[in-house]
């Protein structure tokens, strides 16, 4: 099930919330667990067993690590846990990638497995690993109650697309949490914001990107190529951060506080800063469980560069089983190394607007690498962006697309900025509270209604010429 669907919004969510709040606190984790299983099984009834296996496996590992007195045993168990999780992930996500590459290099002809990727597997394997590792590091104590642990692993708000909630973030809330009406209302707001970002902003700006890449990339003029790359940058941001907002909102509705996953990434003034603001839960995870254990920045520049390359290669690969994602990760790895070596110092002395443009330029290019799995398409597209394909600066279609999307593009820019710290926000906050409250309620009702109209509109499927 996805959040932006009728079945989730109008069947699953009201039923779940009602049952959840009718039942006493003791039962709530069990309800959350059951609901999450239904949520997951709706899409893939079979793969539910992988998730349950993962749950029991790491529940046991956690307990064993804590119980055993011998450090070597602890170590062995945590390694088993990591290997177990990574094997599941690799098998389902990367088998065909490896087979294809082996076939290519060794000239063999091994059949592809063509497995359907279990939804959310990249997220929940990382979450359960964070649990056993943290128990091993004695950062948290093992969860004794298997229902509580199962509720953590399967928790539907963050199951499909994160954020990656580390166990220690919500360990206390799992055992005992206080649901409040304020939290519930805040959750509704976050959810509506996320839904709006996803169905109204991301899906529509995505149409622009799809229109642009549907044509011949070799005849794409410079301006159209840039508009396309920018629209994809907005699509991926609003899609992903919208999904995170919905997840955080749903968590808040039932008393969980997840950490923020995006913090206005497109206002960043360096690539280093961009990655502090983009998909925060993932970069934190990699930093904590790979970069720092590798030695981080503490063992000299050479080791640090090695560590950065390893972490960013893996980060890229995590995004998808294809070479372009690895290149995308390494591209950022290189940029970050260059910034660490000398660029940040130079940037500090340049004007903020130039720093901002520099960052956006490289981020936008990165999304082109991210967007196409086919290397030739990446090359074609980047050639178009720099006019190497000699297709001119713009054409009539550029003007047409701009006239259709300029308003949406402006809204994307406005929504990417950080308004909370501006004078306007302060002014609004100082107005009479009840006006603000009811005005906000109306505003959110409007956002919700607009989102639903786009949700329903997308299912409109006129079948015009034939009828049998």
């Amino acid at each position, binding site marked *: 099930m996805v959040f932006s669907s009728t079945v989730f919004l109008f069947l699953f*969510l009201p039923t779940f919330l009602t049952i959840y709040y009718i039942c006493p606190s003791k039962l709530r984790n069990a309800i959350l667990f059951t609901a999450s299983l239904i949520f997951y099984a709706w899409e893939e009834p079979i793969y539910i067993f992988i998730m349950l296996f993962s749950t029991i496996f790491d529940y046991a590992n956690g307990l064993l690590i804590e119980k055993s007195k011998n450090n070597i045993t602890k170590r062995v168990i945590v390694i088993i846990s990591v290997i177990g999780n990574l094997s599941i992930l690799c098998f389902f996500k990367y088998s065909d990638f490896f087979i294809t590459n082996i076939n290519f290099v060794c000239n063999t002809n091994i059949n592809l497995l063509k497995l359907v990727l279990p939804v959310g597997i990249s997220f929940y394997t990382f979450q359960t690993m964070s649990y056993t590792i943290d128990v091993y590091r004695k950062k948290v104590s093992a969860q004794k109650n298997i229902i509580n642990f199962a509720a953590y692993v399967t928790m539907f708000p963050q199951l499909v697309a994160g954020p990656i909630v580390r166990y220690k973030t919500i360990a206390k809330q799992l055992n005992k949490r206080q649901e409040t009406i304020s939290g519930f209302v805040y959750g509704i707001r976050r959810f509506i914001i996320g839904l709006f970002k996803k169905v109204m902003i991301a899906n529509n700006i995505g149409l622009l990107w799809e229109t642009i890449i549907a044509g011949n990339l070799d005849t794409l003029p410079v301006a159209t190529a840039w508009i396309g790359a920018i629209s994809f940058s907005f699509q991926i941001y609003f899609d992903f951060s919208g999904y995170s907002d919905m997840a955080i909102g749903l968590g808040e509705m039932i008393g969980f506080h997840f950490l923020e996953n995006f913090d206005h990434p497109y206002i960043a003034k360096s690539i280093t800063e961009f990655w502090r603001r983009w998909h925060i839960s993932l970069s934190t995870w990699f930093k904590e469980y790979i970069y720092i254990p590798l030695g981080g920045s503490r063992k000299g520049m050479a080791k640090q560069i090695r560590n950065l390359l390893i972490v960013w290669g893996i980060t890229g690969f995590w995004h998808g089983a294809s070479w372009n994602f690895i290149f995308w990760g390494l591209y950022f790895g290189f940029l970050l190394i260059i910034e660490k070596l000398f660029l940040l110092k130079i940037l500090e002395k340049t004007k903020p607007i130039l720093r901002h443009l520099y960052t956006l330029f490289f981020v936008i290019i990165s999304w082109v690498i991210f967007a196409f799995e086919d290397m030739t398409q990446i090359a074609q597209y980047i050639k178009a962006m720099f006019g190497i394909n000699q297709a001119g600066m713009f054409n009539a279609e550029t*003007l*047409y697309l701009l006239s*259709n*999307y300029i308003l949406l593009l402006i809204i994307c820019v406005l929504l990417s900025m950080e308004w909370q710290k501006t004078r306007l926000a302060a002014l609004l906050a100082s107005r009479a509270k009840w006006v603000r409250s009811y005005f906000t*309620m109306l505003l959110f009702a409007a956002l919700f209604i607009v989102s639903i109209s786009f949700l329903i509109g997308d299912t409109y499927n006129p*079948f015009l010429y034939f009828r049998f």
Partner: protein
Amino acid sequence: MKKIYERTAAILFLASLWIVLLSIFLIKDKEYSENENRYLTTKPDISMEDVSSGKFMDTFETYLNDQFPLRDKWIAFKTDIQRLFGKTDINGTYLGSDGYLFEKWTENDFNLENLQKNIDSIKKFVQINNDKKGTILIVPTSSLPLQDKLPKNAPIFNQNKAFDMIYSNLGRDCEQIDIRPMLDAHKSEYIYYKTDHHWTTLGAYLGYTEWQRQNGNLVELSDYNVTLATSDFKGSLYSKVLNRNSALDEIYIYDKIQQPTYKVEYNFGKTQTDSVYHLERLNEKDKYQVFLNGNFPELTISTDLNNEKHLLIFKDSFANAFIPFLLSDYETIHVIDLRYFKGDLNDYISQNNITEYLFLYNIKNFCEDTSIPMIGSL
């Protein structure tokens, strides 16, 4: 104060979700969507097998979407917002000036091989049937004659490219009626519907006039009684956009004052009427079906003329508005829609003593049709 506000917000949110859910379940399911021209999914039965295969979930989701309360209103609202954002391309339809809607047909959509295949098939047919008089009349899509009404800079396929290909490929064995100059000369008149992809009866009349002119015959508008059949037609393009303030189209009927009596037999004589117009269809959504009652695999019109002229038409729906003009010219008119025709064409042609044939297609349908090659493989 804060407490009351928060309680209200929470209750309103949950209540609105419940109201939608209950109304989907409690209100009687709608069976058919006229705007979408398709049957809607109704409440599915649950079975263990369908649940484990996931089929139940898919159907159930479609059911919720199809039966969503006030569905068409939500979609119209979405169109409103898109227009507010300045979009002139909604669901593959251009929103032009003066209320005109256009099919979005771009260079990317054009399939050259398919067109070539269709042209080759017709060439072959023409060669085999060179004992009969052959004619081809291709109707442009509204975006060619009415290109001034398209949104500014809107990318559109250059139909002339396809016209050139057809007319230069087909030899002299087949008379070619190019109605583009005629339509262009009348582009300020009501030759295409605003909300439908078809040409109007006036457009079809102009096409007929041009054909007759090339054969040395003069057609006079004063020979016809023109009556307004309906003035609230919202066609196929409207259905794609569902714009609230849509234009309303008028459908006119042209009756020749001196016309032979005739009968129309549909689908190899399964049904029979004495009019090419089906006024009862004006009560439905797709009012264009007033012409010949829509599309049939085969239909035959027999008039009381005795001129030994037997015409066979291969056509798409654009011909439906055109065929009524032929009533006073032929003893019989045989109409075949290759998309649905399943019989033996050779037998059909010889049994009906065909003396003339006509290909009448809209250019877009002609480029995209996949049933035309059937006639080349006789």
